[in-house]
């Protein structure tokens, strides 16, 4: 299935399934998330993708959250400092790992004879996703996005999934770069408990901005179920195009994740039904969700 087929499904308002957490799944399976384990544990990556395909995901995401050239550069005072003190090839590392990640996702779908499954490139904000105060100046980041998206496009990603975005200006730049490349752009924002974006914008501002910039799917993600619900209640009435959600379950325990039983797979499904009633048709899981969570969702809605 190419993107057109998936688009028909989405346009027909059939429920479309994303996968669940990947970073947290790596932790849950006993590994650290250092360097995303893309080169050190390719089999682990492959298995997680396969488990999500098995669970019924239509779209699997690359294990690339927070992986960008800038994230490496951010550990140094300036380029000269990085060249002197940084590991060899550090500035090429993001690009290499991006290629690796797409290739592993592709290998997973082929290994299960599921070439119909699409690969979404997981791309978050250039600065730390939960720190809107550090958002870069939107005027200055277009080339950076274009470079990063080109890597994903060259590697064969089918969708750009801009996720855990905290404000619209950066999302607008990301969408513009995606359109330049010509691959569908899905944009997921983080809502807060008050139903506004983590960066403070209202859902009205989000809807207005996105109506002008036209992402292929608009989503809410990376927040606990009650924050997702609060955001969705405000966004859904303002948005008549494809809408999606994926919530996290558990607690962020930097630098790792605390798995809690606050939202069991059954409880999570119950939340998904409510989100579907509110208008969300693209559904998956964020940090802390597992293949078992996704399986519950796909079995119910299929």
């Amino acid at each position, binding site marked *: 299935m190419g993107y057109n087929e998936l688009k028909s499904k989405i346009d027909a308002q059939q429920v479309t399934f994303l996968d669940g957490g990947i970073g947290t799944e790596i932790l849950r399976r006993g590994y650290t*998330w250092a360097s995303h384990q893309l080169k050190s544990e390719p089999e682990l990556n492959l298995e997680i993708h396969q488990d999500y395909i098995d669970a019924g995901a239509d779209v699997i995401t690359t294990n690339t959250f927070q992986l960008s050239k800038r994230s490496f550069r951010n*550990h*140094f005072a300036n380029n000269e400092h990085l060249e002197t003190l940084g590991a060899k090839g550090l500035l090429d590392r993001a690009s290499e790992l991006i290629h690796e990640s797409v290739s592993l996702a592709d290998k997973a779908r082929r290994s299960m004879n599921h070439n119909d499954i699409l690969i979404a490139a997981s791309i978050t904000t250039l600065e730390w996703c939960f*720190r809107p105060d550090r958002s870069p100046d939107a005027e200055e980041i277009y080339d950076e996005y274009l470079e990063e998206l080109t890597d994903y496009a060259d590697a064969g990603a089918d969708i750009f999934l801009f996720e855990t975005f905290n404000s619209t200006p950066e999302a607008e730049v990301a969408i513009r770069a995606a359109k330049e490349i010509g691959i569908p752009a899905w944009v997921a924002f983080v809502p807060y408990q008050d139903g506004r974006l983590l960066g403070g914008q209202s859902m009205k501002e989000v809807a207005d901005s996105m109506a002008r910039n036209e992402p292929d799917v608009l989503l809410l993600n990376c927040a606990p179920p009650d924050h997702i619900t609060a955001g969705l209640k405000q966004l859904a009435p303002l948005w008549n195009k494809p809408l999606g959600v994926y919530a996290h379950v558990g607690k962020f325990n930097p630098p790792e994740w605390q798995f809690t039983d606050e939202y069991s797979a059954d409880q999570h499904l119950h939340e998904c039904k409510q989100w579907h009633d509110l208008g969300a048709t693209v559904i998956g899981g964020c940090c802390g969700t597992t293949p078992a969570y996704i399986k519950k969702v796909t079995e119910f809605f299929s």
Partner: protein
Amino acid sequence: MSYSFIKQKLSTNEPVLLDGGNGTEVLRRGVRWRQHGIEDAPDVIREIHIDYIEAGIDILTTHTFNLTKRNFINFFRDGDHMALIGALGLEKRAMELCRSAVSLAREALTQTGKEGIIPLAGSISPVMHLFRPDLSPSENDCLAHHKECVDILSDSGVDLIFFEGMNNSREAKAALQAASGFDLPVWMSFVPGLDGNLLNGESLSDTADLARSQGAEAVLVSAGSIPMIKKGLPNIINGSPCGAKAIIGRYSPPSWKPDFYPRFEDTDEVSPAEFSQEVNSWLDQGVQIVGGSSGTTPEHIRAVRKMIG
């Protein structure tokens, strides 16, 4: 007080040997980097301290670099956001870990019979990433932050406060002010840039003078490669106690971490023997306090002790 031994050495111009990398050593020994390894592997932390003590150090440093409340809050929008989506008790985690870290260092001193002989330095990092002076907050924020850190370490019973890796004069001044209300000696190390100045471009010699005038009993350069340390060193030497610690290897952070993460590559580029030769050249220049930053191991420190005698 064990610090009087150090004071004695400093006044008679004898070398003072510090330990080497703690964080890099935790990773090298296969411990997963979360909560500094303190919860998962307290035995390894204690063992690293013991290895440095047995290598012949004069001062032991707590494994508390980059272990502050701010290092947890930094992952979140703010304290409220952390309370909502963060793990339970995260706001108190750094404080608890710091106390455990001091206890582990104390246990190492007791086990080796060095309690009361080797003083314990409480390590405090910059508020933000040590290599990002541009992120350093306002003077007031720095003051409040460092006061809290000094308070915890002082209360846990360290013998001196060691501000490590300061990268700008504003924060250095605030940190020294924060420590001034406590009855503990204070040392401060600065991160050099490539040109012998402070990492943010300020004059290293002016900042070193400022630190001394604000109460720092010793001033060091640290967290730079050997050539960077060499370049910075002449700018802090002025006859009063000063020192140097160098990094071995190349910094290889994971992409997703907003704070310092002690992973280094190519740390075998400088052997213990070569390292001790470098240290010897620093001593020749008039430095008294020497040790290792990230990447150095107990073997490097042992080689230096052998050379110093």
